[in-house]
């Protein structure tokens, strides 16, 4: 008798615990879903808000989104990415698309775009068959803010808003903080368009990859280089689509294709709100420079590597008004998607192949059946 009572009690307790656990996990799921729906993508967000948003997006969309901390900034903060991808029904190896934002602290529209980009995919993949298919073949890695220390610094007060570099401490003999992370990558490092003066805004650091933020990207993407099809790095301003290389005397082997894919993206971008984006290498349309992440990506073999310089063309420059966040992100999304789609089609253009092989088998069976029935019919 007593054993039965105890058993009943234990079962009851267990059930209570289980149901409350389920409830909380379910409610946090619902909460996360709700908070990402109410998140204002047309406002600039502090780093704390962005970290929280990443957690919410992941919790609210577990079948699509996962996160990873792949490095730490100079001041020890997490460098976090969101990985967007669906299970491949064929179980094949996924290819990789890389998107990063906020290498330069003051370019606030860039992290805003990365958040917008994730939101768009999360909100449309269930109803967009093409996007769903792409996500089955591709994993899209999005880092909303690479230069977390710098970004946080630009939020400190009115006078820090235009900070560009990281927040590494001054080298010996200097009182100037920070390295231009986009001159620190291992791609013809230190050769042109870069300064060795630690006080300069394009100071490239003391050696290639000396900065933890740049090293984190190189280590992480380096491990996936064989699967990586496309590397997009988002900046402002100028309305440009920059191709490798920043060195004026080095050309990418697929220069022509990079131009045509870039031009196609610019056409798509202009269709959205009439804004023109110029396509070219940095030495052609902006200035020569080496040590950029885009150049590093192309150099290690990632075939499609672009820097997007978003709005505007000088009226507000980096201080782009919040009412322009939505249109700027809409056109940038169109451009990014154009390139990603091209790269996907090129790699998986026999995307009907799985279906085709099923079709072939079906046809074979059907023809056999027909042949049999005809032959036997004739026979009979």
């Amino acid at each position: 008798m007593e054993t039965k009572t105890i058993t009943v009690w234990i079962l009851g307790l267990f059930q209570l615990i289980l149901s409350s656990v389920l409830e909380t996990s379910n409610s946090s799921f619902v909460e996360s879903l709700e908070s990402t729906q109410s998140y204002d993508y047309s406002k600039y967000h502090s780093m704390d808000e962005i970290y929280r948003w990443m957690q919410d997006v992941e919790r609210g969309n577990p079948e699509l989104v996962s996160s990873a901390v792949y490095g730490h900034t100079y001041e020890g903060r997490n460098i976090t990415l969101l990985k967007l991808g669906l299970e491949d029904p064929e179980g094949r190896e996924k290819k990789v698309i890389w998107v990063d934002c906020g290498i330069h602290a003051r370019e606030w529209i860039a992290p805003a775009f990365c958040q917008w980009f994730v939101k768009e995919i999360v909100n449309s993949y269930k109803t967009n068959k093409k996007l769903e298919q792409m996500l089955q073949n591709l994993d899209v890695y999005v880092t909303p803010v690479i230069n977390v220390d710098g970004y946080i610094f630009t939020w400190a007060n009115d006078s820090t808003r235009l900070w560009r570099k990281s927040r590494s401490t001054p080298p010996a003999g200097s009182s100037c903080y920070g390295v231009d992370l986009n001159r620190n990558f291992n791609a013809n490092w230190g050769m042109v368009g870069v300064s060795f003066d630690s006080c300069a805004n394009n100071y490239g650091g003391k050696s290639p990859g000396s900065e933890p933020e740049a090293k984190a990207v190189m280590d992480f993407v380096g491990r996936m280089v064989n699967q990586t099809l496309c590397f997009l790095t988002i900046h402002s301003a100028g309305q440009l689509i920059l191709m490798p290389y920043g060195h004026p005397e080095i050309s990418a082997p697929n220069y022509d294709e990079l131009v045509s894919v870039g031009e196609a993206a610019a056409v798509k971008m202009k269709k959205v709100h009439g804004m023109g984006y110029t396509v070219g290498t940095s030495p052609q349309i902006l200035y020569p420079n080496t040590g950029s992440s885009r150049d590093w990506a192309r150099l290690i073999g990632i075939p499609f590597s672009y820097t997007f310089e978003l709005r505007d063309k000088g009226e507000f420059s980096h201080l782009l008004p919040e009412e322009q966040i939505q249109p700027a992100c809409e056109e940038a999304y169109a451009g990014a998607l154009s390139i990603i789609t091209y790269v996907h089609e090129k790699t998986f253009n026999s995307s009907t192949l799985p279906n085709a092989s099923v079709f072939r088998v079906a046809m074979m069976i059907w023809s056999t059946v027909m042949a049999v029935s005809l032959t036997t019919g004739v026979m009979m």
Partner: protein
Amino acid sequence: MSLRIIVLLAVLTGTIGSPRPEADSADMKAHPNSVPETAEKTKSFVQQEVLVVEKAEENVMATGELNVNHYPARRAAQVVQHYLNTRYGSPYRLLQVDKVHRGNAEDVADSGRKYKLEISVMDFISNITDKCSAEILFPRGEQQRSPQVQALCEEPLKINTKAQEEALYQQYKMNSSLLSAQYLPDSYGHIEPDMKPFWHLSIVAASFIMLNESSEDTLYNVAQVANITQLATENDQLKFDCHVLLHEMVSQEIIHWKLLFTWSPPDGVKVLQMEQLPHRHEGEKPPNTN
């Protein structure tokens, strides 16, 4: 016998009867990551060489007909923009390069490099565009001298801003308290509508600096007006003390300047004093923006 026929038919159907995906011709290109190493490498080496030659030609200071999308034309056009704003800019008119239609550059023996441009400019405020032709001479020599610009636009004063300018002038001439504003735009890109004319006015004044400081190796924009303060005057001008942050694109530096200037509708902007503030290092106190 019939079984053999069936098997044969089945085999034939399997190999011929089904649609063939068109991937075959794409072969190597379809899988950029699985390109046979040697073949692609040879191809890329040859391509690389060809492009290096082309690039070298382009890089030897752009001369002759300019590519309108490339930076030399763009930088020269920006100089024209600054020049036009010093001449026609006002709290209600501010011009921006819209497009470079044609460009040409040539060395002028001993004196420098002359650019001839056909451009369109757009007024920020009305969005009306205008066509201009301009000549810019970037002097060469030991000293860094300012570029010399001549420009002719079709209808620079097309939009009549006289009434608005007069109203603004009267309002601030009569006002007992003097204007003082900071951080235009603010960190979020926001400017109070009442302050916009002073943001424009500061950019016009800063255009004098940007024009003076420009060269073929620079591209200037006003990043932000840190502070603008109205000063009392005895004459009919409005007078302002202003601290601007200029963004120089090529070096990516933010350069601080202090300006003292006057403005009235008939006389436009006149810069009385300008002074570059030293590059602030972390340890030093920021200049008093108040």
